[in-house]
């Protein structure tokens, strides 16, 4: 008898993997960059690769982008082995690296046309796509000026526009917002979200944990060349100890007294609140309130903040994330 109810195949139940890397190792001389890295990136998602400087983020991207062969381990991109079938991998990927990959001598439009020709697309498609990308990346006005006249942010946008000319199924973004102003970052985030909505897979490395938190569906934390944690941002935060209690004061005297009482507490930018590195459990909050009560310090309000990715980063790698600490004021 024929079975009319078809069982879903495993492929249909589990989201397909855009990237599947197992045991990647790479050394430069006697300097180990990757020491058995595993990485799984589901299709049509944003995965952020975070880790301390020198942890192997860029090496990972370079191997997956067929720019470098691993010493050991294997990696596939949409099922194609990066070493055995580099051409098939290259046909599926788009890469925007840390260093601007644009032709400075050509104009913005010529750079996009160069990509169109290398993707062998018909003239009409090329014309339409060039116009669309110039518009989307706010480069239409500067399209016919040589790239030498572009600002850093404009070059970065052109770089990504060039990557997208071939409509890749997966885009590697290696520190795409480093050095961008907040507005440039917003533009880039918007584009990444649009791409994912269209079914494109994104693997990005970033120094900004806030960026990983806001943008990524999944975060892979690597340290010393290996994966140390992987999951959604909220999954990772649940695994980390830490968090903050923020106290708001109505009067300066109360604030001053609290500063004396809680050694090492961080004063906020506006000088009206105090941030304590404490977990936000009821017992923790009660303990803080009891101390304030005993000293007769009036606290106006209190908010508890769960651990952020910075806490995750610290607890798992043992190092504070420098760039993120620098940018934490703008986050708060």
């Amino acid at each position, binding site marked *: 008898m024929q079975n009319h109810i078809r069982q879903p195949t495993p492929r249909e139940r589990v989201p397909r993997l855009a990237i599947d890397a197992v045991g990647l190792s790479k050394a430069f001389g006697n300097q180990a960059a990757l020491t058995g890295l595993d990485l799984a990136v589901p299709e049509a998602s944003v995965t952020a690769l975070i880790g301390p400087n020198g942890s192997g983020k860029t090496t990972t991207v370079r191997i997956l982008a*067929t720019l470098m062969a691993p010493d050991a381990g294997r990696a596939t991109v949409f099922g194609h082995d990066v070493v055995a079938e580099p051409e098939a991998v290259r046909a599926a990927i788009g*890469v925007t690296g840390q260093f601007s990959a*644009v032709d400075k001598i050509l104009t913005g439009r010529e750079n996009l046309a*160069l990509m169109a020709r290398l993707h062998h697309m018909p003239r009409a498609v090329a014309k339409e796509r060039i116009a669309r990308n110039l518009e989307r990346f706010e480069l239409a006005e500067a399209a016919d000026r*040589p790239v030498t006249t572009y600002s850093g942010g404009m070059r970065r946008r052109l770089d990504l526009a*060039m990557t997208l000319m071939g409509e890749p199924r997966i885009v590697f973004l290696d520190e795409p917002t480093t050095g961008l102003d907040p507005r440039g970052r917003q533009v880039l985030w918007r584009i990444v979200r649009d791409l994912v909505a269209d079914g494109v897979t994104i693997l990005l490395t970033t120094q900004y944990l806030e960026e990983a938190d806001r943008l990524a569906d999944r975060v892979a934390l690597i340290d010393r060349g290996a994966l140390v944690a992987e999951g959604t941002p909220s999954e990772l935060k649940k695994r980390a100890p830490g968090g903050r209690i923020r106290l708001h004061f109505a009067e300066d005297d109360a604030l001053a007294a609290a500063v004396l009482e809680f050694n090492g507490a961080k004063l906020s930018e506006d000088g009206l609140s105090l941030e304590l590195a404490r977990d936000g459990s009821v017992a923790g909050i009660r303990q803080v309130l009891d101390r304030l009560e005993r000293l007769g310090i009036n606290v106006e309000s209190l908010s508890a903040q769960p651990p952020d990715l910075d806490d995750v980063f610290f607890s798992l790698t043992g190092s504070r994330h420098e760039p993120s600490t620098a940018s934490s004021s703008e986050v708060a």
Partner: protein
Amino acid sequence: MTSPSLALADTTTMLRRDVRHAVRFPMVTISGLLVPVLFLLLFDGVFGHALRAGLGSAVSGGYIDYVLPGILVMTAASVAESTALGVNADMGEGIIARFRTMAIWRPSVLAGPVTGSVVRTLITGAAVCLFGLVLGFSPNADALDWLAAIGLYALLGMALSWLTVAFGLLAKTPAGANSLSLILLVLPFVSSAFAPTATMPAGVRAFAEYQPFSSIIDTFRSLLIGTPMGHHGLVAVAWCAGIALVGFVWAVKLYNRDSPVVA
């Protein structure tokens, strides 16, 4: 797309990029003309009389008729040198890393500049010829000779360009690329470019007679001013084809050294 048409399409695209660069920075092309023009003035105007006297009856015309084919070969070397510099500088650009991640015919990244270099060689060579005519160069070549000379010149340009592209990839800095390519400008001095090899001391003569530039120069001489061809033509074509092949294989190998698979 089939691979030969892919190779052609991508090389054409890369040639367009190279031509755009050359047009926006014409100094690169103009400086390639500077060395040969200087040598032509020096060897014709300054040393010409003494050297002509030494030639005796080996050639019929003035010294410029003898020396111009040699200067033409140095012109090709000079243009190829600028190509080495260009490729060396270009390899440091991020866009090369982008090309490496794209599904294109990989050697096109090099074949574009090489083709551009051949075009620049032909243009610069023509300019040197015109300048020579002004100085009194009087070729007796017919149309077929000219055609053969142009063909060999393009082949020479291609051979030297593939070699200097490899130099450009090998050197870590533009200065290094420049020094490596300098050998191509020095070698013609120990050839039949300025004086017949027969007038040289035995050891030097053996080297000068058998090094590639002598056969190539003697072939141009034969085509342009009608000295006997002998076996020079075949040897010249063989040298050019050989150098082009070695340069191509070497350059592509260097280009791929950081990448896992040639493909």
